[in-house]
């Protein structure tokens, strides 16, 4: 597996997550009580035996660096290979939907040039999953493919909105890529690209050379231009891939963790999702604690009621609280008798005694970092 390196695009800043992605790139958005979104993309690569990973980071890179360090927690602090932080270009448009900008790779072309490996696995990081690329790489090698695009199949139009649809012929050959628009109804299952692909390293270098003069072009556009001359294949994944494209998605993907089969696939499989390890004591449940159907990180002190909620490390829930359907990030303090429902609290939020905060399931209430209410 050492003939493969990884490349993760973590640099898009995004307005889709309201305040959650304001001071941090999407890669660094906290998820599931103790992870950040990046952990899923990075762990999947590491667990597939990839030992050299480049991470394209944005200008707001401190949260990412703080989380990764030298990659020690991901076994990526290595003399040969390891984790490379690749600063992306500064982009003007926050709302830009492009994911794999050639300009960003171009700035860091040495990372690709210095290596000896055959293939590059490229992934974006707004999705939650725990997959192993070994089989897909084997497929890629057997087909002697130039590019292998990873796809899933579904007939759920929600899953497909904004996705790229693949038209796949016999032998898994991809002959057309097409954007899926939201108002484009479908009645049958269609294969859609899940923002992960395998590409020959030298081909990627050629594409960058050829397209580097064009402002802001996406790798996928370059690929579409050359679809007839390249050997492009599709590989079908059946794994859970939870995409986060809106605050509603963010809330729902967190709530997905209460489904046993999804929790099992993400957290209890043979391959573990790595994350930064921070030393915290165990979580303390007081005599008035009443917790059900919830995920809690360590270091919390729980004295109230918690239901269908996700608590990050160091959260304090005082007696008399009622927390329901909420996501509470690290070190929030919820005062006595406070009531929270359908709420997302970013780090270090304090809710004073007796206050009531309620959002709706379709529109959860979001409180920004360090808010005191």
């Amino acid at each position, binding site marked *: 597996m050492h003939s493969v390196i990884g490349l993760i695009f973590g640099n898009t800043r995004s307005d889709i997550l309201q305040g959650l992605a304001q001071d941090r790139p999407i890669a660094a958005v906290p998820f*599931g*009580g*103790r992870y950040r979104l990046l952990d899923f993309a990075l762990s999947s690569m590491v667990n597939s035996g990839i030992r050299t990973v480049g991470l394209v980071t944005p200008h707001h890179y401190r949260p990412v660096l703080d989380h990764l360090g030298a990659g020690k*927690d991901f076994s990526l602090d290595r003399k040969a290979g390891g984790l490379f932080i690749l600063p992306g270009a500064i982009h003007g448009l926050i709302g830009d939907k492009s994911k794999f900008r050639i300009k960003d790779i171009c700035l860091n072309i040495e990372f690709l040039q210095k290596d000896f490996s055959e293939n590059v696995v490229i992934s974006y990081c707004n999705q939650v999953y725990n997959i192993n690329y070994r089989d897909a790489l084997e497929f890629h090698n057997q087909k002697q493919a130039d590019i292998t695009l990873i796809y899933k199949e579904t007939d759920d139009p929600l899953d497909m909105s904004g996705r790229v649809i693949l038209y796949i012929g016999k032998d898994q050959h991809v002959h057309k890529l097409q954007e899926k628009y939201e108002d484009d109804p479908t009645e049958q299952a269609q294969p859609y690209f899940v923002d992960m692909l395998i590409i020959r390293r030298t081909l990627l270098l050629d594409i960058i050379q050829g397209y580097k003069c064009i402002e802001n072009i996406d790798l996928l556009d370059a690929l579409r231009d050359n679809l007839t001359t390249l050997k492009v294949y599709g590989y079908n994944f059946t794994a859970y891939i939870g995409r986060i494209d809106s605050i509603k998605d963010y809330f729902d993907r967190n709530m997905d963790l209460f489904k046993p089969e999804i*929790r099992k696939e*993400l*957290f*209890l499989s043979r391959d*573990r*999702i*790595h*994350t930064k*390890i921070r*030393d915290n*004591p*165990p*979580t*303390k*449940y*007081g*005599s*008035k*604690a*009443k*917790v*059900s*159907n*919830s*995920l*809690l*990180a*360590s*270091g919390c*002190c729980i004295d109230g009621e*918690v239901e269908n909620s*996700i*608590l990050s490390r160091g959260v304090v829930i005082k007696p008399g609280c009622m927390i329901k359907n909420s996501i509470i990030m690290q070190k929030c303090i919820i005062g006595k008798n406070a009531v929270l429902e359908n709420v997302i609290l970013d780090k270090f939020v304090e809710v004073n005694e007796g206050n009531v905060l309620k959002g709706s399931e379709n529109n959860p209430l979001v409180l920004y970092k360090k808010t005191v209410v």
Partner: protein
Amino acid sequence: MLKKECIAMLLAGGQGSRLGCLTRNIAKPAVSFGGKYRIIDFSLSNCTNSNIDTVGVLTQYKPFLLNSYIGMGSAWDLDNTFGGVHILPPYVGETQGSWYKGTANAIYQNMDFIHHYNPDYVLIISGDHIYKMDYSAMLKFHKEKESEVTISTVEVAWEEAPRLGIMTVDENSRILKFTEKPSEPESKLASMGVYIFDWSVLKDALLEDEGDLESDNDFGKNVIPRLLRQGTKLFAFKFQGYWRDVGTIESYYDANMELLNGANSLDIFDPEFRIFSNEGILSPQFVGSKARIENSLVSNGCTILGEVSNSILAPGVYVGEGAKVKDSIILHHTKIHENCFVQRAIVGENAEIMSQSCIGVQAKGHLEQAGITVVQDHQVIPQGSVIKEGRNVYRTR
């Protein structure tokens, strides 16, 4: 050549046989404590919090888990370019190997290690006590008193004294008398097994002790009393705070349970004196919709579907639906299946209690180890088993 002011030698060699089946497969300092910790975390974190950056760890009993756990000490911020944590097993020299006999002999065999750092002072500690201590305060006391050997002491209950090293001191804290395990203790001032020696004094004392064929090569039994007889300046440093020897099943159980009762206990939540540990990667704990947890400590990676009260759960523990865990300590990655009932028990690591079993059922007559039931690590208890309180469950080989 560089030198260090003070290095620590951590005695982690003992089996701790009074912990019964908890230490059949691992050394006592590696035994799980307080949920996510292992006993040695406290001594190592004390070193970190005292700015002592060089620690020799003397191991010889079943050291694999302990050695892997300690590694280079990076989990405790103790990995340094010069210094750091070094595991010191017994070894073969030019002639032949020899095992560590007493505590003093273990240090004697590693005098080359100490000499390598050539410190002014040597701190000797053991890896099997639960306490938070800033050793730099003791070192300051040692220097101020112009002491040659300083012993850290704690006041214990009269009934505990006969199990410990007990000393008598004058008004200036100078030690007048030291008796290991006195049948009739003269005071309640007990040694914590924490010593600071001037390196030159230690060196001579170890050489002399090694020459004494009658000696058991133990600090408390031999070296300290001999130094006292010879007029060496020994002082007692009075430690204020929580300290527990967890050498028996009962004391181990009690010290764990004290973590649940806040007062007078160890504050594991204090951000300014953190206890570090070497954690694996685990998911957040999941609490099911029928679960009920009260007055308990629960670690990462646990899945709780049943009821847990007054208990401490180490990382990765599973409690099935309908199961009840009460007044118990469940160690790493142990599974307790549906409808089990576990009371006043210590269940070892990676054990599995199959459904419908009862552990710690009330019994009549004399109860061993205060009625605490202990299940050995990796033990599988078959479905529907009934185990009476005070029993030890382990494999015979």
